[in-house]
Each structure stands twice: as structure tokens, then as C-alpha cells.
């Protein structure tokens, strides 16, 4: 079997390494910092620990309706940060153990190409040269620095920095209303911090179905988060212990916002600068490594997966690509299939989505039927005391093939898998409608939305 060197130990890289080892390859993994990458160390996992803390806090209030009244409680940010670090450590240690069990040779250091068959690895011990038949590049991404005056001010943080702060900020301005910005807004607002979000585009979560995104906007506003859309941060200045942030609105209005901290969540850029890709002849396009459907770059023995190549910038996409690349390195010819990729946003309630939005369909000229069902009609949502949200199923008019499913509600991020399974197996609304869904679960709302595509929801009053 060919030997393989994987560069980068995030979800794209470590999954590729394990899969290739399963298939009998001789695998080496180069990691510049810590295995687990952005996802485990400063992305998906630490944010979800903090979000769960916010959820637990909001449960204190909810508990009052269920008979419990919290008379006195305290909050210690340090304990929460320790919890986060412990969870991260448990998972990264786990990944290290997995890699070891599969015989993957993990080398710590920064890799850069000498030519298409050779890299140098730099670390504290010096520099070493390593040869390999094939490579999978999985170097991921890092926060991008938008061109704003005053980025050097105290308390201007990236998502990496904010996960290391020593105390919870009392107020924060977040630049960017995409997934990362909105999750941090949910989290800090939930923990008692006053949050303002500034989004350049005319709406937050611009990749998500517009109806759902505007529902989320409403919910965030009702929780006291200030959101400015179609607005741009132009300047940051220090004033005393605060920051004064100038915001220019498309409407022409200029405002200033005072905040203790500023969080940059305006996109991410690929980690390719250190790689010396030109030495290997690997082509990029606007910073992204160019790959084909086999996850292969223009250089036949070099593959790339995850954030460094893929515009999705999602851990589960990185993992899926890693698996495909590994199988192809091992002699396969598998194509990456992006037709059913879920996207989740851990707001409260959660938002999850797969496939096309209504607007996507409209733009593509596909006539659709849309079924909706509100959480307030769902028994499980009511027992959980979380009646906000809805399910929306978008199906083509002719065959009622499911084209997109959008869920805002309790446990939406788990429920979306049912929609993914349906879409993966090319189900029609009928097949979701006919599913026997356990009672009482939020999943019943998905079934009802599918029934509603056919104009026959049971738990919606007759129209008109």
C-alpha cells in the first residue's frame, strides 16, 4: 500500500488519516498545534459547551414555571472555562488515542512543501525533510481580519481569543451575523452580556432560508440583542475601559456603539500561506485549494479536504471529504456528494437546515409547494416549554420530491438528520408524511409539515 502524509489534524485530516489506515495505508499526520484542529480546540466543541451553559442558565428561569424557584445563585466564569477545557481535552485525547490505535504516526510541526513528493517539517527540535507517495492537505482555516481601523485596540478579539478570556464581558459588539457571530451572540447574551451584532448584508444568516432567518432575528431581538443589518463597522477607538465603535449604515445613518469587547466574526480565511504550495505546483483560487470531485488537487498525488478547499467550512463536510480522499488515495474512485449537507446553528431554540430554501428554488425556477408547521401546535415542544419555531418543508410541485427542510425548534439539530435521510434516499413529501413518528416528539412537526405540503396536516385547522 502507498504511504500517505496528511497535513493538518482537524476533523478533515484526522478522519482521512484513520480511514486511510483502515484501508491499509501507511499513514503519517503532521500537525502544527493540537490534533482536533479548529473544531475541537477553538470551534464547534468549546462553543457548544458555553452554549450549554447559557441554556442551563435560561432553564433557571423556565424552572419557575415548573415549580422551582431559584432564590440565589452564583456564576463563576472560571469554572465554566475549566469545564470547556476539560471537554476539549477529553475529545482531543480521544482523537490522539484513535490515531495511535490505527498506527498513524503523528508528527508535530509546521509542514511546507519542497516539491510534490517532499515536505519539510519545522518544530522546536529543528527541521526535518519527509517524503511521501501521496498527501492530503487539511490545514483548515483561521479568522479573517476585516479592513477596519483600530483592530489593534485592547479587547478586540477573534473567535480564538474570545474562548480564552478571563472574565465574562459586560457588553460586546460582534462584527458579523453569520453562523459563528450568531452563536456567540446567543451564548454571551444568554450568559448576561449585552450584545450588539453588526452585519454587512441586508439580513443575518444569509445562507439560511429567509423566513427562518427572520424568525431567528425576531427571537434574538426579543432576548435583548441589538442587531444592525446592512451596516458596516468602520472604526474602533478606545475610550477609558470601553471601545467606541463607528457603524455606518447603508441607509446613510452613522451611529456609534459603546462596548467593552469587540468580537470579529466576519469570515474565515484558509490556512495555506505556510504550505509553500507553489513548490508542489498546487493551484489555489482566491485562497482556496482547487480540488475536483475526487478531492484531488491539480497535482495527482496531492488531495485537499476541509476548510482549506471547501466553501462549506463545516466540520462534518471536512470529515466526509476526508473519508473520500482517503478512499481515493487507497485506490478508490469515490466522488464527494454535496447534495445533502445539513447546516446547524445552535441558537435557542436551535436552527437546522438542509437543501434548498424557498428563495433558492425561486431563483432556480423550480415551482414548489411549501408545507409549514408551527411548534406551538406540537405537544413535545409544549411539554418542554419551548413553543417558538416552526418546520418548513420545500418540495417540488410536480413529484413532491423534498428539496429542502428548515427547522427552528427544540432539538432541531438532531431532527434534521431525519430530513437528511429522507433526502438522501430521494423521498417525496408522501414518504415523510407516512412515517409513524413517535409521540410526543418534535419530529411530529416534521411529519405535519410534510402532510401540509399535501394540504392535509392533521394538527392544523382547516384553511379559509
Amino acid at each position, binding site marked *: 500500500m502507498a504511504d500517505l502524509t496528511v497535513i493538518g489534524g482537524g476533523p478533515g485530516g484526522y478522519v482521512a488519516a484513520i480511514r486511510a489506515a483502515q484501508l491499509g495505508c501507511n499513514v503519517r499526520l503532521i500537525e502544527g498545534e493540537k490534533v482536533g484542529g479548529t473544531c475541537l480546540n477553538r470551534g464547534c466543541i468549546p462553543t457548544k459547551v458555553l452554549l450549554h451553559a447559557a441554556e442551563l442558565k435560561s432553564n433557571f428561569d423556565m424552572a419557575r414555571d415548573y415549580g422551582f424557584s431559584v432564590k440565589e445563585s452564583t456564576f463563576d466564569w472560571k469554572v465554566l472555562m475549566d469545564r470547556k477545557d476539560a471537554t476539549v481535552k477529553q475529545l482531543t485525547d480521544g482523537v490522539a488515542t484513535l490515531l495511535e490505535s490505527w498506527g498513524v504516526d503523528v508528527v508535530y510541526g509546521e509542514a511546507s512543501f519542497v516539491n510534490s513528493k517532499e515536505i519539510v517539517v519545522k518544530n522546536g527540535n529543528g527541521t526535518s525533510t519527509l517524503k511521501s507517495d501521496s498527501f492530503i492537505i487539511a490545514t483548515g482555516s483561521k479568522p479573517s481580519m476585516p479592513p477596519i481601523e483600530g483592530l489593534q485596540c485592547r479587547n478586540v478579539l477573534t473567535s480564538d481569543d474570545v474562548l480564552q478570556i478571563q472574565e465574562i464581558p459586560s457588553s460586546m459588539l460582534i462584527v458579523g451575523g453569520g453562523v459563528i457571530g450568531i452563536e456567540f451572540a446567543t451564548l454571551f447574551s444568554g450568559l448576561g452580556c449585552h450584545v450588539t451584532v453588526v452585519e454587512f448584508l441586508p439580513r443575518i444568516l444569509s445562507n439560511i432560508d429567509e423566513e427562518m432567518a427572520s424568525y431567528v432575528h425576531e427571537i434574538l431581538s426579543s432576548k435583548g440583542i441589538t442587531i444592525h443589518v446592512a451596516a458596516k463597522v468602520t472604526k474602533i477607538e478606545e475610550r477609558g475601559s470601553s471601545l467606541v465603535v463607528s457603524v455606518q449604515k447603508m441607509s446613510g445613518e452613522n451611529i456609534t456603539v459603546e462596548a467593552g469587547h469587540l468580537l470579529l466574526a466576519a469570515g474565515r480565511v484558509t490556512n495555506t500561506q505556510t504550505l509553500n504550495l507553489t513548490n508542489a505546483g498546487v493551484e489555489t483560487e482566491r485562497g482556496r485549494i482547487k480540488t475536483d470531485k475526487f478531492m484531488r488537487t491539480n497535482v495527482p498525488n496531492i488531495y485537499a479536504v476541509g476548510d482549506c478547499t471547501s466553501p462549506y467550512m463545516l466540520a462534518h463536510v471536512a470529515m466526509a471529504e476526508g473519508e473520500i480522499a482517503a478512499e481515493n488515495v487507497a485506490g478508490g474512485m469515490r466522488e464527494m456528494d454535496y447534495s445533502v449537507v445539513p447546516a446547524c446553528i445552535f441558537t435557542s431554540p436551535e436552527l437546522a437546515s438542509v437543501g434548498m430554501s424557498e428563495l433558492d428554488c425561486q431563483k432556480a425556477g423550480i415551482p414548489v409547494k411549501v408545507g409549514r408547521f408551527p411548534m406551538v401546535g406540537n405537544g413535545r415542544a409544549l411539554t418542554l416549554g419551548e413553543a417558538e419555531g416552526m418546520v418548513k418543508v420545500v418540495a417540488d410541485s410536480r413529484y413532491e420530491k423534498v428539496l429542502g427542510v428548515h427547522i427552528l425548534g427544540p432539538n432541531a439539530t438532531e431532527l434534521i438528520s431525519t430530513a437528511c435521510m429522507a433526502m438522501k434516499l430521494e423521498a*417525496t413529501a*408522501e414518504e415523510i408524511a407516512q412515517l409513524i413518528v413517535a409521540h410526543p416528539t418534535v419530529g411530529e412537526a416534521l411529519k405535519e409539515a410534510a402532510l401540509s405540503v399535501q394540504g392535509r396536516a392533521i394538527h392544523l385547522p382547516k384553511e379559509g
Partner: protein
Amino acid sequence: EVLIKATPIAKKIAKEQGIDLALVTGTGPGGRIVEKDVLDFIERQKAERAK
């Protein structure tokens, strides 16, 4: 062009038994070929061969 819709297990059995799914009538929702359709088809083929 006719797209043949079949469940994964129907496809798998058909492939293993060398059955052309174009010959099988689907009885699932929207005419999807399900496992039972393939198994019934195999039974019928056997019965015919026996004659």
C-alpha cells in the same frame, strides 16, 4: 429517459441476483421498487422456469 426509483435493499438484492430493475414493477410510494417487489419478481421467475 426513465429513472428507476428503488429502495437501497431492493437495489442490492437485484444487483446480487442479476435482476434488471427495469423489468420490476414498483409498488412503493410513487412507484418506488421495494424489497418485496424484487423478491416477488424472483419467485415468479422461479415459478416460470419450473414450468
